[in-house]
């Protein structure tokens, strides 16, 4: 394993300072379940400094209010998220993903913030957040802050659009509208400790009668270079009756948008097929949740 400096940052300013100074040579660490493995495998040879952000209060925030919604600090480990009564009640789609990342042991360390910044196309944590309209809170040099819709954070496999000196502070998920529901489903050969062959996060809002889609967002994992929001799937849903035909159209749009590769986890054909199956099933699950059944 390569030698590196370890910095335990106590404030956002300190972490941003180290990032600004070292650029590519510095990497943030929350749970470390990705970055430490990468360092051991020699996959991040440029890293000279690891900045531990678990000691920064703001990054450990997990809170909800009806005005701004849910705040998930970037260092909050998965187990805190899926054990939180408010998250369980209002955001079951997030519980779906936070509770299947790695294994129980890994969920004790791994954060959704880390899952986001690691930026693999197969990340389970990301699709339901994008589907729910999550926004990134990003800090930068000179105490600057900006917000960015989560779907705009990704530049390619393992790459984000964060600039030099920038770091993710938290994600904010809007309060769920009335008659809305979300679900994340992934397909893996094993039931634990596995990487998605394909994954689909779906969030929908129904009308008061719960028979028509008001809106919907479908996000795909592991079938594109980045977590992929499929606007065409949402368009296929908006204003349409809740039935198998509408769901089928949205699934077709998702399949059409998927651009997977063939690798050890699956072939192009199989992955596209799974996108269709999972989109239908995730939409059905989201509808069930919207209906409160």
């Amino acid at each position, binding site marked *: *394993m*390569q*030698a590196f400096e370890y910095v335990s940052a106590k404030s956002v300013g300190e972490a941003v300072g180290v990032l600004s100074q070292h650029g590519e040579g510095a990497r943030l660490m929350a749970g470390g379940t990705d970055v430490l493995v990468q360092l051991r495998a020699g996959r991040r040879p440029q890293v000279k400094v690891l900045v531990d952000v678990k000691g920064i209060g703001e990054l450990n925030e997990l809170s909800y209010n009806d005005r701004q919604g849910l705040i998930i600090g970037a260092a909050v480990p998965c187990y805190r998220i899926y054990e939180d009564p408010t998250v369980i009640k209002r955001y079951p789609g997030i519980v779906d993903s936070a509770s299947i990342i790695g*294994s129980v042991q890994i969920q004790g360390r791994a954060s959704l913030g880390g899952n986001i910044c690691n930026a693999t196309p197969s990340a389970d944590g990301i699709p339901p957040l994008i589907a729910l309209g999550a926004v990134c809170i990003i800090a930068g040099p000179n105490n600057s802050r900006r917000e960015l819709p989560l779907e705009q954070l990704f530049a390619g496999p393992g790459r984000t659009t964060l600039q030099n000196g920038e770091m993710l502070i938290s994600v904010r998920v809007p309060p769920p509208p009335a008659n809305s529901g979300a679900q994340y489903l992934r*397909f893996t*050969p*094993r*039931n*634990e*400790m*596995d*990487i998605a*062959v394909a994954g689909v996060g779906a969030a929908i809002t129904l009308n008061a009668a719960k028979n028509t889609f008001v809106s919907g967002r479908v996000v795909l994992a592991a079938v594109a270079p980045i977590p992929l929001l499929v606007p065409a799937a949402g368009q296929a849903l908006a204003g349409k009756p809740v039935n198998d035909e509408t769901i089928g159209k949205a699934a077709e749009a998702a399949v059409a948008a998927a651009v997977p590769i063939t*690798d*050890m*986890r*699956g*072939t192009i054909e*199989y992955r596209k*097929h*799974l996108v269709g*199956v999972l989109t239908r099933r995730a939409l059905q699950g989201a509808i069930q949740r919207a209906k409160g059944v």
Partner: protein
Amino acid sequence: MTTTSGRTNTPATQYKVVGTRPIRHDGADKVTGRARYGLDFNVVGLLHGKILRSPHVHARIKSIDTSAAEKLPGVKAVVTARDFPANPKGQPIDFAEAGADVRVLAENIMAGRVVLYQGHAVAAVAATNEHIAEEALGLIKVEYEVLPALLDVRESMKPDAPLIHEKLTTFFTKDRQGRGENTGVKSNIATHLQFKRGDLATGFKEAHVVVEREFTTSMVHQGYIEPYVSTGQWGKDGRITVWTSTQNPFGIRASTAAILGVPESTVKVVSMEIGGGFGGKQPAYLDPVAAMLSKKSGRPVKIVMTRKEVFDSTGPASGSYLRCKIGATKDGRITAAELYLAYEAGAFPGSPIAGGAMSSFGPYKVENMMVEGYDVVVNKPKVQAYRAPGQPQTNFAVESVVDELAQKLGIDPLEFRIKNATDEGDLMPSGMVFPPMGLKQLEEAMKNHDHYKTPLTGPNRGRGIAVGYRFNGGGVSSATINVNDDGTVALVTGSVDIGGTRTSVAMQAAEVLGLRAEDVTPTVVDTDSIGWTGTTAGSRVTFDTGLAAITTAEEVKRLMIARAAKIWEVPPAEVAFKDGVFTSLKNPNDKLTFKQLAARLRATGGPVTASAINGSTGVGPIFAGNIIDVEVDPETGKVQILRCTAFMDAGKAVHPSYVEGQLQGGTAQGIGWALNEEYFLTKEGGMANSTFLDYRMPTALDLPLIDTVLIEVPNPRHPFGLRGVGEVPIVPPPAALANAIARATGARLTKLPMKPGTIWEAVEAHKAATKTKK
């Protein structure tokens, strides 16, 4: 009969200890962390070794420049093949010559002029810590000339295929053990094996239905949790010690000495506690390298493999190509059976075709039969034993075809098997005659089990069965027993304890001596401290080392009787020993318990100690069967196991909990082999998924409760009737699952692993084919 869910003990027997479930002797050490594994070994001045490995699957080594690595501060030694005496001139191996075996061992642990698989070692470094050693590897410059790679047995067998070894010629044999005749034909086929009897053409003519199918299976790994680890110390006095994780300490001693070119007696192998092996931890990959680095550096050197090295560079199980054809009459009598198997040997000859061929049609009476096996070199790691080596592959083919045959004839698959079952006196595929065995009892137990009698209902569900056979060989074991003053005994063996054998062997000694299992303290010692003992493999330790312990205990009994006779001044023939009590026949009031007599030993002529070997005649046949219910998601191809019952004829279960554990563990590994495990190759032919994340062994969440049923048909070759139970449980699961999937979906899977994508494709193809027919 015992079942896991029921936890009922075996019925009362004539035994007091055998058949009970005492707490294991090594249990406290293992749960408290006191047990010492290879990684725990430490010594002052220890250096850390790392091995540089080939990134290519086949390449000529043009040059190796280690000078920069040698100059790195902290590096104490660098070695390459030139440092090992087995082949200083780098000549190609002549496989027809004596000594070829040593050359293979030496070439496999350090490539001379050619690398034959990804991960083949080319150099090694010892440094003051592992990070420096790792950095030093990066400073070694190796120039390769990449050669064409052969990755598939069928490609490699083609007459015009490039030769992986220029001096390899095909041997032809009809014998399961002999090497056969050298045909002189240069080829990548090292051995062509043939078992043949009757007349196939006549047999198939007699058949009403014939089913023939081709099968392929992927290379898989044993997946032991503890990676290879070894520490070597080459003393200034020329004495070499290695502390290592192995199933086979005396084998490690022999091959380490041969590779290093020193007398075997100068090498001492200390086998540490082992974290799994399953047949894979028998060869010496690290030991000679650690020793050579120690010789050059003058300090002890420890080498620990990474998981990637374990996958890339140790011996997995053969991938295979098989073709099976079986014919039967309308009423379900098998008339002819033919099996063709070609196994990946990896980079050097030695795949388990004999094991696969011997197992094949073992559960079936077949008059007209032919089994042809081919051992084929390819550019993959040299294969090693994996639990019933070569047998899950042939069983997958044979039991799939048998199932389809029964289906076509409209006969219950278990009835079909019972109708054709072999029994004592019938011929094995190898031509040997079956001794007493429990196949029929096993199949009847399956038929009468609640699982088989409970109908399986619901869509996309299917029940599969399969029966597996293994012929267990055997080998030599030594044992020593020392009687302590307090009436307990110390039992010393050289058999590495991999499946609870300290206890299962100690129980047999206790049975003979009328002691409790707890009164026997079993210890596994190094190669200087016990007589030669064969490897812990082949389901042989509880049987063979058990026999050695029994023989030794009988000798202890004889010596104790002699001592009682001496005390009572009667001839030994007039002393009886029963239920742990010595009694004078002349004067029945003269009684001494084992404990009382033990207390008097030193005062009456000195301690009692005895050593013996087992004189094994081979363990004999063993059978296992599975009933597995599955549900297949037709949209994703994912298999969920609803219910799984595993049956085995254990002969006699010495410690039923351990036997059930072997049955469950073997079944779990068979399920992994069947459903997800595979060496997934990159375009270049190296393993792409060399991590436990992407090499998908089943986790606890992927496995059902595996219910166990033990049948006990005594093995006449052992005084307590036991058979070797370690391996056969892995044999039937792949076929049982394939048969269950076929009955759930209509699609016959002929390729392992039956991963979700493969099942989905097969189901789609089956749907398309059914539509066309209609």
